[in-house]
């Protein structure tokens, strides 16, 4: 039998089974109904529900831990941080996890345990116990202290991560649009040429909107992959030309929205090269990836770019290999506005 007809046979068999099961249920129900038998008459709902809560707690806790363990090797957000501040974030994550797992398990356990322990039994009377201010104050103050500690730690880290970029940081520009990324490196002069959305001219492939009068843009390098030299401070300059995007480099714990009309930035220091990470993970095909994590339209799910971290030498070599040729730049006297720019301006207004 060919696999396709086998497939459809299995499909039919499954439907039949479901139908039979349904019919059996209906039958049983009708039989009990007509004979006025209540098969569950002896069940005590208090006991059953109370016990089920206890079972749920035990099975649920075990299942939660086992499944977390089983999936943990894929938790790239808390394993193997590839950036300096990533280690801090991961450490904070671990502390928060210890506290919150403890609290969640304990409180859920008490909730379900009490549900089982105090289910209604004949002759049982509830305790009239309306308040106890000492208890209330206790469980106000303890969470308050724990949270204060977490907040303080969080604030210190946040300010460190979000503070000014080191002066020596290498600037890389991320340009987002629906639905891809374009990266720009400043080139040998270490200066980005001016770009403006209003200068964009797709007919001349001026996708980033270079001001062709600004010569510092002429040596800018435009790429489709983003490369970083390892152990170097990187300052990402993030722009969008249409809607919100959010360049996300999960392995580096980097994320910042790209906002049209408002450039944003994020600085970090990658610490593990792609090659090292491949070795560590035992995956020769591994690549760092960059995704978009702010809903941006139909292609949102597919805005992928490869991120490469390499040694400074490799990085320099790669950069040299990238073309900085931009046909829309026409050599003229320094500072003079080219006719192309004027043409762009009129075209776009």
């Amino acid at each position, binding site marked *: 039998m060919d696999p396709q007809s086998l497939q459809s046979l299995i499909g039919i068999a499954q439907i039949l089974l479901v139908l039979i099961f349904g019919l059996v249920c209906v039958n049983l129900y009708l039989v009990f109904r007509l004979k006025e038998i209540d098969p569950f008459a002896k069940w005590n709902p208090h006991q059953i529900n109370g016990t089920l809560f206890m079972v749920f707690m035990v099975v649920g806790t075990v299942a939660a831990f086992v499944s977390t363990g089983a999936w943990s090797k894929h938790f790239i957000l808390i394993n193997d941080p590839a950036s300096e501040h990533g280690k801090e974030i991961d450490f904070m994550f671990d502390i928060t996890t210890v506290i919150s797992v403890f609290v969640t398990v304990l409180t859920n356990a008490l909730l379900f345990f*009490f549900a089982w322990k105090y289910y209604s039994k004949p002759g049982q009377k509830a305790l009239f116990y309306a308040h106890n201010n000492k208890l209330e104050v206790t469980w106000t103050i303890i969470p308050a202290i724990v949270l204060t500690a977490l907040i303080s730690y969080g604030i210190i880290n946040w300010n460190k991560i979000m503070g000014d970029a080191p002066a020596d940081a290498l600037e890389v520009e991320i340009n987002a649009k629906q639905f891809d990324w374009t990266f720009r490196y400043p080139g040998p002069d270490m200066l980005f040429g001016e770009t403006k959305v209003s200068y964009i001219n797709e007919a001349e492939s001026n996708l980033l909107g270079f001001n062709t009068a600004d010569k510092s843009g002429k040596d800018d390098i435009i790429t489709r992959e983003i490369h970083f030299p390892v152990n170097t401070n990187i300052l990402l300059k993030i722009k969008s030309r249409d809607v919100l995007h959010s360049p996300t480099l999960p392995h580096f714990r980097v994320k910042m929205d790209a906002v049209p009309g408002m450039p944003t930035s994020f600085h970090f220091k990658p610490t593990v090269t792609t090659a090292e990470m491949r070795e560590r993970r035992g995956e020769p095909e591994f690549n760092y990836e960059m995704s978009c994590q702010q809903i941006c339209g139909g292609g949102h799910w597919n805005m992928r770019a490869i991120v490469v971290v390499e040694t400074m030498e490799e990085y320099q070599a790669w950069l040299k290999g990238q073309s900085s040729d931009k046909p829309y730049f026409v050599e003229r006297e320094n500072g003079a506005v080219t006719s192309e720019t004027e043409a762009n301006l009129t075209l776009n207004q």
Partner: protein
Amino acid sequence: MSDMTAHTVHNGNGEDHSHDHHHHGNFWTHYVFSQDHKIIARQFLITGIIMAAVGVLLSLLFRIQLAYPETAFPFLETILGKWAPGGQLDPNFYLALVTMHGTIMVFFVLTAGLSGTFSNFLIPLQIGARDMASGFINMLSYWFFFASCVIMLASLFISTGPASGGWTIYPPLSALPQAIPGSGLGMTMWLVAMALFIASSLMGGINYITTVLNLRTQGMSLMRLPLTVWAFLLTAIIGVLSFPVLFSAALLLIFDRLLGTSFYLSDIYIAGELLHYQGGSPILFQHLFWFLGHPEVYIVLLPALGIASEVVSVHSRKPIFGYQFMIGSMIAIGLLSFIVWAHHMFVTGMNPFLGTVFMIFTLVIAVPSAIKAFNYIATLWRGNIQFNTPILFAIGLVSFFITGGITGIYLGNAALDIPLHDTYFVTAHFHLVMGSASAFGFFAGVYQWFPKMFGRMMNARLGYAHFWLTFLSLYLVFFPMHFMGLGGVARHYYSNTAFSFMEVFVNLQTFITFAAFLGGTAQLLFVINFFGSIFFGKEAPLNPWKSNTLEWTTPRNPGHGNWPGDIPHVYRWPYDYSKPGIKEDYLPQHIPDEEVEYEEGFPKPATIPHREVSPRRVAEEAAEE
């Protein structure tokens, strides 16, 4: 209307009027354009259930896509036509489904369906009022909501598709039809529907606040209000203060879309064209949106917590633990909810200094939340728990509240939010703490007050099955989402196959989809039970749960006006369950001290405690004479 208001105030002699109202109304005024809060509550309830069915079905559709991103299902093309060419969802339509699921569930189900139903039903009944302060505005509130539902649902059927920019409708995506087809007519309809919704919500809210503050029966001081009413009051206050801000946000977005203003837009080149917008800021919209959006979380959650307080106390036959702390923590949550909104925006390009401020308040709000959770647990301790269906859902709610709430500590911490923002970790967090917990509050409320609403009991066994299947499946759906979040899987992704670090989770997506279908199917039990019991349920006793609150003192099918005779007075708080020395294990609020039945051999208190009479009442009564 005016005479209704009048005799709610003169709570002594409303008898004849209420009968008049009951009998004079024809079908239209009685069931359709009714001003009776109980009918309006049922209208909200049934509309809410219908919207919930739509919202859940939309989610099941996109769950199919997430589970089998590269498989074609011909039946999808049959039912969806061009939205599923070849049996696979169109990516734009996928986003439309996500957007409409979020919008419908958050606003139409968990705001209007929950608050609209139970605030309407319970406020007058539990405070001892004959109706809302304005029955007419209350009626308008429902019909604005109805119109809003119609427009929102109609937008599902237009050729460019419904709004697709996510339920948060961030511009520029939501402002530019070039960016996504759903931002055309679909978005306009979304905005119009939401404007009507906000109007409905404000009319409801103003009414709830006025009613609670002015129409309480004699003896019902604020500190004798059931926690449900406290929750509804605070919810209404939060809503009245925050919804107008969403309205203004929506209005400016409408201007940007239709009149060419630049409130939110600047420097945009899209679809081969430079747009004229200059100087606007998308971040401004996010501030305005979340100024409502975060309080909205508590608008959804507080009524559920209030219902849970009542239900846990009644069915464990114990006073709610820490009544005053429960109120205090709700007030604290209400106040803080207005100054935490920007924790949704840590990585949107907002000034990082603001991040610090909002991080502090966000984690502070965890403290009153923790108090509430502990108080529920303490209420169960040494109770005599009657496992009726409502308390199952209330306990489930507390569990979701804890498990989902705790991840808020991660997300509220700005530094940890950097990697976690907009991943499935967030999806898991708010679906547990806000979605599931509030949905369980809704179910607890329906099972608890169904006997009062329809005069019949719901089937308990179907209720148990409904609870266990739903409880289990919700955990199975949302708990594994934490794993995907930690794996960096982004929300709103049509398919997880484009990235190697996400691809490993496709199997887990499949598992979640099966769990979601289990949960979705389980809701049929509820629907059958609900609609079946309306017609065929066992006739309900007057006070089926032996509860203390006033709603159970009304006759089986109270007409407009609630009590055929005088409105009962109130002599104590609502949580005297299992009070030592009292004959029964409950002591309703309306029983005067001298009529309390004590256990045999228990010495009656020598002096009858002082009966509180509010000075306002005395003044009013004096004025009447």
